[in-house]
């Protein structure tokens, strides 16, 4: 498969770009909800529009009423989300949770997916247990209790947890904290007794929670996939999420870079446009190269995921790391090349910097994924 978008995908990209540029624009969404101190950090109306556009069903199979598309298509929407800094539950609901649910029973899918398709429901995922992403180690426990399970533990960085109707929780049903086997994924409804969340606002104005599970009782049918066989579902979910986050990061990088290059063509100092200074030209050209390479890595990872290739895991790690590095460079150069105005809240470039921080931390930063690349390569 060639590493560029086919005609259908190009059409989707146009649609997503136009939609996000209008409806998802920074002033209309990010700043609006931020300045209102909105407890969700995003607009439910926009989420409904996502559903009307069909975006929320991209990764839902046709049998379940979705579009049955792939990670390439989800990434197309995410790149536009990144470019416009559009706050939405797309990544956690329509990519992460949808991928996990896709591996669940017909009952589970029937219970949760219609809400996603209509834009009425929001989902979150609870994997991390400390300040750094480390899904190798899961200490949250689920013990057999009657026909179901009793969950105890704590999770953090549960993005949009407080807005979610259902949270996908990774818990240990057997084995030691760092065992590969013995994990199980659960679809936990928001009103489950014993579930409590502390919401925190993050640097990018998005909302996340610290989540506690205190003897949360769940039916057996809340299990996604196999009991003790959750690692496979978890990996599938995380890889889709990481490829998605990488696509969003490429959007953040592209948006930030374009804004910066435009500024270089407008701002005058020493009687010249600052874009005439070779010191800045070279940095901008280097940045362009890095962003292009990141974009290539991301589409390669998406395609391999969609093909079910065994090389997908490695390339997803590459993509998440590279996109994080490129976007990090884009926002840092962006603020610096804007000078003083880059430090003002009024100007958007700083918003890119904040979003990049949160996004690159989400599901593993560049160090985490470079380490994955080393491990998967055998060193």
């Amino acid at each position: 498969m060639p590493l560029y978008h086919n005609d259908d995908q190009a059409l989707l990209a146009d649609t997503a770009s136009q939609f996000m540029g209008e409806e998802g624009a920074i002033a209309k969404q990010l700043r609006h909800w931020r300045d209102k101190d909105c407890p969700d950090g995003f607009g439910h109306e926009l989420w409904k529009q996502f559903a009307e556009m069909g975006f929320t069903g991209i990764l839902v199979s046709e049998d379940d009423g979705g579009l049955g598309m792939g990670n390439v298509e989800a990434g197309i929407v995410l790149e536009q989300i990144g470019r416009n800094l559009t706050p939405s539950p797309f990544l956690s609901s329509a990519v992460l949770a949808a991928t996990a649910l896709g591996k669940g029973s017909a009952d589970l899918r029937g219970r949760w997916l219609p809400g996603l398709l209509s834009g009425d429901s929001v989902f979150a995922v609870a994997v991390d247990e400390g300040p750094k992403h480390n899904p190798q180690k899961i200490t949250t426990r689920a013990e057999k209790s009657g026909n179901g399970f009793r969950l105890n533990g704590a999770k953090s960085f549960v993005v949009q947890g407080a807005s979610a109707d259902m949270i996908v929780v990774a818990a240990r049903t057997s084995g030691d904290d760092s065992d590969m086997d013995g994990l199980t994924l659960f679809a936990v409804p928001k009103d489950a007794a014993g579930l409590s969340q502390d919401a925190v606002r993050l640097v990018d104005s998005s909302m996340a929670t610290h989540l506690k599970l205190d003897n949360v009782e769940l039916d057996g049918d809340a299990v996604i996939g196999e009991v003790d066989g959750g690692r496979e579902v978890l990996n599938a979910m995380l890889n889709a999420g990481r490829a998605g986050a990488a696509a969003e990061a490429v959007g953040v990088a592209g948006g930030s870079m374009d804004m910066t290059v435009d500024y270089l063509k407008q701002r005058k100092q020493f009687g010249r446009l600052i874009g005439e200074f070779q010191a800045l030209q070279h940095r901008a050209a280097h940045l362009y190269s890095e962003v292009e390479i990141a974009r290539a890595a991301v589409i390669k990872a998406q395609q391999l995921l969609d093909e079910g290739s065994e090389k997908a895991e490695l390339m997803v790690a590459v993509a998440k790391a590279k996109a994080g590095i490129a976007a990090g460079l884009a926002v840092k150069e962006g603020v610096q090349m804007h000078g003083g105005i880059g430090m003002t809240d009024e100007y958007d470039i700083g918003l890119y910097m904040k979003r990049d921080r949160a996004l690159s931390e989400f599901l593993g930063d560049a160090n985490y994924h470079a380490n994955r690349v080393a491990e998967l390569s055998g060193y």
Partner: protein
Amino acid sequence: MANLEEFRAETRAWLEANCPPEMREPVRDDKDVYWGGRNGSFSSEAQGAWFDACVEKGYTVPAWPKEYGGAGLSPAEAKVLREEMARINARSPLHSFGIWMLGPALLQFGTEGQKKHFLNQIARGEIRWCQGYSEPGSGSDLVSLQTYGEDKGDHWVVNGQKIWTSYADKADWIFCLVRTDKEDKYRGITFMLYDMTTPGVSTKPIKLISGNSPFCETFFDDVKVPKSYGEDIPGFVGEINRGWDVAKYLLGHEREMISGAGNADRLTTIGAAMKRHTGELDPILRAQLAMFDVDALAFSAMGEKFLDEIKVGKAHPAQPNMMKYSGTELNKRRHELMMTAGGSRSLEWDSEVTRGGKPSREWLRTKANSIEGGTSEVMLNVIAKRILDLPGA
């Protein structure tokens, strides 16, 4: 697609039958590379057999049309051949500036007669070419070149000096940028073709920091260059005084080649190999290797994307500059890390275990990657100007 799969099966069978096992071993030193030319000689029987088989099949230049010595493969077929050769680690049968540089220029700008004559010679490895662009006073600012060809009717008399001419001392012919109009900087250069044995041509090898002497100073002292070598075979490419157009086109190719984009599928990671060679890795080095491998794998996806986009005309015309910049900087980093991982062993300059100081010599050689064919700084200038459209660039 079914056809492609058929082609893949055929290619696999052909390679199985024709690529000798020795030609599937990694290249160890200069002897393992065949450059052809009047004085070319094979270092082994297998090398000769592999070369002959490829010439016969058109596989020294698979994508060139059959009438010019190629196999007439479509881009997709050529990719399959590349993949199949990479799969068995087949060596390239022929290294040649004729294939990489002059050929593409002739395919684009040559007359039918030139193509038939020169391209077939190149495909069969009969003539070894060198590139006469740079001069002592004209490097990055190539268009300022001074080597002058005085018009004498049916020929020019060329005087001047080139420098950094790779393999000039081993080449049979030169493609050379010569000023033919002193009044017009850009439209006063002619892209000439001539025999290195012509009286007045002399070369003087220059020793590099790697200890090798792959390039030369090249002197032209009243060299008589014919305007024609026979019917429809002009002694210049394109039009007289419009050689800059050809040179610019060709630089695009050269940049693509040096970037390694064409071998993206062969660009490998190094961390695992370094661990095998050195045992336990220092944790900081391991981290640097991991970061490198991320960049290498991402760049190889970029190479693949770039080639896919070129095929359908989607790539930005200035994108080869970005590929060259990123690819060469990456390669320099690769060799820095390999030297570090190798430790004192990789410092050995002519020992047997290092096969004559291969690690250090290659490390030094890579420093030229970001100079030859346009420096990294010049690449960044071009990206800034042509892709980002920055002012005054």
